């Protein structure tokens, strides 16, 4: 069971976790990304490529389900303006055993960062700038090859 959503609305990680239990799963793992509030950012805005984004996330989820025999994989990614402390992204995985669920969850968030067409723009007061890609993200994605 794969569930991919790209949405402006907030999401509830508890509800997402509950939804992927069952189906024979013995382990559920998740990652939630939040807008950091420690460096003066007042607004974070996410732009994406409608159509391609959903296809790219679905492709990653299908790879994870096949590689780790997942019973469920959920990816929820918000777009549009967000305030510090708000949730941006949720990845949830369900598998027979913990290592598969944990590895699949890491795989999905690492690969999502380099293989899904999202772009972040930070605003600090009156000043807005597009966030630069980080080479450490490339390295993290590479270790799942």
């Amino acid at each position, binding site marked *: 069971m794969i569930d991919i959503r790209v949405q402006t609305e907030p999401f509830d990680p508890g509800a997402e976790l509950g939804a992927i239990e069952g189906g024979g799963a013995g382990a559920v793992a998740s990652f939630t*990304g939040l807008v950091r509030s420690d460096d003066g950012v007042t607004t974070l805005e*996410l*732009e*994406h*490529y409608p*159509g*391609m984004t959903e*296809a790219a996330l679905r492709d990653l989820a299908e790879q994870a389900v096949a590689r780790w025999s997942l019973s469920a994989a959920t990816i929820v*990614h918000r777009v549009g303006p967000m305030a510090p402390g708000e949730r*941006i*992204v949720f990845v949830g995985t369900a598998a027979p055993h913990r290592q598969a669920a944990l590895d699949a969850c890491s795989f999905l*968030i690492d690969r*999502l*960062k*380099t*293989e*899904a*067409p*999202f*772009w*972040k*723009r930070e605003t600090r007061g009156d000043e807005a700038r*597009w*966030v*630069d*890609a980080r080479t450490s*993200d490339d390295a993290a994605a590479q270790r799942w090859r």
Partner: protein
Amino acid sequence: MALDLLYFAWVREAVGTGQERVELPEGVTTISALVDWLAARGGGYAEAFAQPDRIRAAIDERFVPLDATIGSAREVALFPPVTGG
């Protein structure tokens, strides 16, 4: 042949539009050549495509390298390296 071009993030802002339809001239057969052709328009295009190594591309919603052939693509997107998650 008509080709839809999409731009995202700072590429979109520099170019001044998110989408346009173009007729590719003969000789513009790869993404690299397309980027050079757009840069030659000057203005915001020159600014957006001044450093091709900062540009990433997709053909019909699939990531491709800059040396990829455009072929019979319907849609090409040009954008900065992605920063989601």
